[in-house]
């Protein structure tokens, strides 16, 4: 079981890790402790490995800072389910191996602090008020996620997955 952390629309990467807490400002070992420090001060303290972030439209918009995603990775986030994702954020998650999955309207079903299970194989986010149907992850991204991220994929295969 994991906990759902629910956010609204247009969650920007400044909310995930404010620029003033970039790794090179506070150190590689500390920046993740500032995750959501303005928006959700309880997050860094209470988050557990495998927890799932749930959002609305345009999750992860704003600055391209990959360390926002790296901070989530360090906290062991099991996946992110949102109505839609900002593209750089989406790429960063795929590259670092965090499953990012679209669903038509997850906020209608999932409440903050719900106990949830992210079942990627079944394409479902199981939640107390019902299951959220997940959109299939595109093949290209799936191959990279399965390898654990783009670095692992390239180390294994030497080049990108085929595009055609």
């Amino acid at each position: 079981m994991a906990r759902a952390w629910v956010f609204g629309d247009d969650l920007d990467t400044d909310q995930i890790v404010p620029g003033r807490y970039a790794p090179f400002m506070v150190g590689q070992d500390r920046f993740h402790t500032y995750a959501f420090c303005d928006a959700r001060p309880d997050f860094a303290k209470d988050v557990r490995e495998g927890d799932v972030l749930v959002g609305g439209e345009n999750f992860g918009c704003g600055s391209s800072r990959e360390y926002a995603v790296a901070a989530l990775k360090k906290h062991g986030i099991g996946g992110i389910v949102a109505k839609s994702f900002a593209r750089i954020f989406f790429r960063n998650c795929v590259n670092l191996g965090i499953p990012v999955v679209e669903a038509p309207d997850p906020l209608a079903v999932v409440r903050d602090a719900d106990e949830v299970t992210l079942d990627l194989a079944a394409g479902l986010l199981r939640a107390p008020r019902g299951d959220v149907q997940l959109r299939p992850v595109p093949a290209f991204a799936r191959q990279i996620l399965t390898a654990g991220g783009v670095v692992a994929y390239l180390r294994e295969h030497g080049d990108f997955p085929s595009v055609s």
Partner: protein
Amino acid sequence: MGGPTLAELILSRVSGRDVRAGELVIAPVSRVMVHDSVIDAVMSGLRALGREKVWDTSRVCVFVDHAAPAPTPVVADSHRVLRGWVRDQGIATFYDAGEGVCHQIMVEEGYCEPGTVIVGSDSHSNSYGAVGTFGAGMGATDIAVALALGRTWLRVPASIKVTFTGRPRRGVTIKDAIMRVVREIGTDGARYACVEFHGAGELPQGDRITLAGMTTEMGAKAGIVVGTPEAPEWLRPSADAAYVREVTVDLSTLEPQIAIPPRVDQVSDVSEARGIPVDVVFLGSCTNGRVVDMRQAAEVLRGRRIHPRVRLEVVPSSRRQFEDAMADGTLGVLSAAGAVIGTSGCGPCLGRTGGVLAGEEVCFSTANRNYRGRMGSPDASIYLGSPYVAAVAALTGVIDDPRPYLDASDAALDALVARRREERGDRGAASARSGDRARELVAAMPLRSEPWVVGMEVED
């Protein structure tokens, strides 16, 4: 099927096959841009990939601009490591602290070859579309991969066509035009898309950087200006190209625009926000830190002092812009007015160096982002707009329509400034009143009924 958009043209050409929106391509890049903020992650990405060297040392541009000069020992260490890496790699194109913002230098020094793909470690790498380059911002790992392979993967974006007609009236700038577009499209309306600008090819290069760079604020993958003098003949979208959306802005009727915190797409005519007091004015960034922008501010401030309760920080976007503004006396005018002139670079735009904002402070900025906490305290608020509005805010202490200030007689200007200062009053931090006004303004804004969803998938 219609002919290609600019994005389709460029990505077809570089990938060697005819592709359309939605298809995946593996695209060779003509350059990779890396800046100081993310260098640690980029280097460890390269290491993790098992690569000692970048694929081509002549095609990598490295900048120290985001926190420059180093504000803390940790940053200084990171810069030191970066310099060592640049030396070890043998990368010749290196701009150290004080040379300016990466995007400004990439464009003005001619590193952006039109019709090619450039990826950068910064989200405003879209700026390269100012000269017809497909520029896209990416995260550190993507950049490491591009540095290792000289290639990147991309989903060919659908395109939005933005057409400008007419000429702006005096006191109205291209910043107002792009904010009008953001107002229309919203912060996610161009998600995954390429914003193609028509009717802007003849604009000065700096104005085109303002346009292309701010497509990031609409979620775009790229923003490209059609018909620039730099672009080769083949780089023209087909007359029957397919666009997912078209927006036309008549510049001749455009009013000065401002963005209300904390969203870039909460945009209103400046006249509606008249009287909002400010504590700090920032003139700079890759969006509006060029000599033309400083000249516009100087037009308002020449021979005058800024409001005694306002701090004005001016940060030229590059050394070239700094020197041009010095040579023609613009910086002298701004300094005499009370401006602090900062080191060329990103400066306060992202709250790392220069004058960061205290809680409750209200800033008027010519940059491109006003998120909570962007320029310092999360309790500060940031309005965005043109250099003209910025200069008026510095002079009077309030947001106002800049047009009555331009070309006014000395006596009329004195009277106007005195009236505005009187209205502002002399209280301390301005945010209580401005916060109320901001809420009123935002409440009065029409809701966009449906977010514009562009593109088919979220793969990129």
